[in-house]
């Protein structure tokens, strides 16, 4: 089913503006997606009608806010196919979700000589927390190599697995290249040696249908702001038995059952991991983002984005001097590239002057860029509201820029 793009675009106020006197073409969706009016309304409604602290207040507003807050948790449960909403923990973002697991699971279950496996494709936020843990515990970080096309080499991953492997933490879809990893196979192989698996779903959750029960991942980390939701809100899914076995993350209100100066007992999950007043307004507004996705349908979104990616590849590949980076067919809607003899910064800035927003640089994946022998790339990333017409403008812009050095 073709999407009604005019209707979808009408729901996003930010898209209807000019930059430098030219219509905005927003192709930086892997960094953050724009927000539909319904999300903005939900934020405004919460603060104008329901604002109050949740779970404790003995009054009407607190009841309403608590109910809406927990409705979002329930909606996320359904969105990712979790068994129960207690397995959904609210954090600040994907980064905090990964740090939470590294800090708590790591504190209890990772010991000297244990091994943690990540891949070459990882974002810094799925590298540094594990490095910190390894340093603290004397554990060892192992890295799955990738092919030149940007895919992890599965046989090499299998060779890294052993009884020492305690955690495999890999990106579901690469933010820099778009590569979708064979996570189901990774999870199965890791479970065979008794390791737990965390998926960095920052890029995958907005594009792929995800069912954590079917995948059987132990953790899934992602961010609301890449899913048409507000910034500053992340989600950590974890299997109940693992979350229960983990010590708390931060101490404070909400996460306790009973506090005496001698000893504190902790609350049940998910509250055990949600110390302090949470990001109530953004959590409530995120429900509107999930409803927006539902109203269009994940499959329709994916089909539209696949069409855009195929179209962009076809148009851009025809340009003299165009160098694709990451050539995997199975990918989310990210296209990374370079222009012969030009620096990505220059290309990005020139595109910006044409009103086209892309990202340039190392995309917080410096080890990946080093592996590919690049300083950085230009990255265009598409979302449900992007059109072929916008890709025509991108291709036209890139063509004109490339011609400077590629006559």
């Amino acid at each position, binding site marked *: 089913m073709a999407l009604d793009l005019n209707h979808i675009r009408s729901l996003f106020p930010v898209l209807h503006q000019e930059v*430098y*006197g030219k219509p905005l073409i927003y192709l930086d969706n892997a960094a953050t997606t724009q927000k539909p009016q319904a999300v903005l309304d939900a934020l405004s409604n919460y603060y104008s009608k329901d604002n109050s602290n949740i779970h404790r207040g003995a009054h009407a507003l607190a009841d309403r806010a608590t109910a809406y807050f927990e409705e979002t948790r329930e909606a996320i449960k359904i969105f990712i196919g979790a068994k129960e909403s207690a397995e959904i923990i609210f954090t600040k973002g994907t980064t905090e979700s990964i740090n939470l697991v590294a800090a708590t699971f790591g504190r209890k279950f990772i010991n000297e000589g244990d091994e943690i496996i990540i891949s070459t494709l990882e974002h810094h936020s799925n590298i540094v927390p594990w490095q910190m843990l390894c340093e603290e515990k004397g554990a060892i970080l192992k890295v799955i190599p990738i092919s030149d096309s940007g895919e992890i080499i599965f046989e090499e991953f299998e060779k890294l697995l052993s009884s020492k492997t305690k955690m495999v933490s890999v990106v579901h879809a690469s933010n820099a290249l778009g590569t979708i990893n064979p996570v189901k196979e990774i999870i199965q192989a890791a479970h065979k040696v008794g390791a737990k698996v965390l998926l960095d779903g920052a890029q995958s959750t907005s594009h792929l249908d995800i069912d954590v029960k079917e995948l059987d991942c132990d953790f899934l980390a992602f961010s609301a702001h890449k899913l048409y939701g507000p910034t500053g809100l992340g989600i950590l899914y974890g299997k109940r038995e693992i979350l229960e076995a983990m010590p708390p993350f931060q101490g404070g209100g909400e996460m306790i059952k009973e506090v005496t100066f001698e000893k504190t007992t902790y609350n049940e999950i998910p509250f055990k991991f949600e110390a302090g007043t949470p990001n109530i307004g953004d959590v409530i507004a995120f429900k509107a983002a999930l409803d927006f996705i539902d109203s269009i349908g994940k499959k329709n979104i994916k089909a539209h984005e696949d069409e855009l990616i195929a179209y962009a590849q076809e148009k851009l590949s025809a340009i003299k001097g165009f160098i694709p980076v990451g050539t995997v067919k199975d990918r989310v809607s990210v296209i990374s590239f370079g222009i012969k003899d*030009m*620096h990505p*910064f*220059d290309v990005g*800035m*020139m595109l910006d*002057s*044409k009103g086209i927003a892309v990202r340039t640089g190392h995309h917080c994946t410096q080890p990946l860029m080093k592996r590919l022998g690049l*300083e950085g790339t230009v990255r265009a990333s598409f979302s449900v509201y992007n059109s072929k017409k916008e890709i025509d403008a991108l291709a036209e812009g890139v063509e004109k820029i490339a011609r*400077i050095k590629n006559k």
Partner: protein
Amino acid sequence: MNSIQDIQEEIISEFEILGDDKESTIYYIMELGGNLPEFPEESKIEENIIKGCQSKVWLTASEEDGRVQFQADSNTDITKGLISLLIRVLGNQTPEAILNSDLNFLQKIGMGNIIGSQRSNGLVSMIQQMKRYALAFQAKQNA
């Protein structure tokens, strides 16, 4: 010999011709980068890199007949264009003139809007480094 202020006026009028068109302005700055003299590969070393720039910028300076000569390069063309503007203004001037200069052309041509805040910080670092060289040569002259 044109004074720093004369050269700044020249640049301001050149940018006035470009008007508000961001695209032509960026292309123009890139083009300017092409006019930078060849920078020796052997000088592209860590100690010549200007800290605080998003892209790599190498800068060296020498003194000839009491005037400071700058040589620079960058891995990005826009940055090369920016530093070529600075060299056009501050190059071949006396250390005193460089140290006393007020680079008001940047504000007048709206450089902050053209290149954005992140690159503007880089530009400030370049100017600081050029003034540091001037200070060193001044100290040498006075020694």
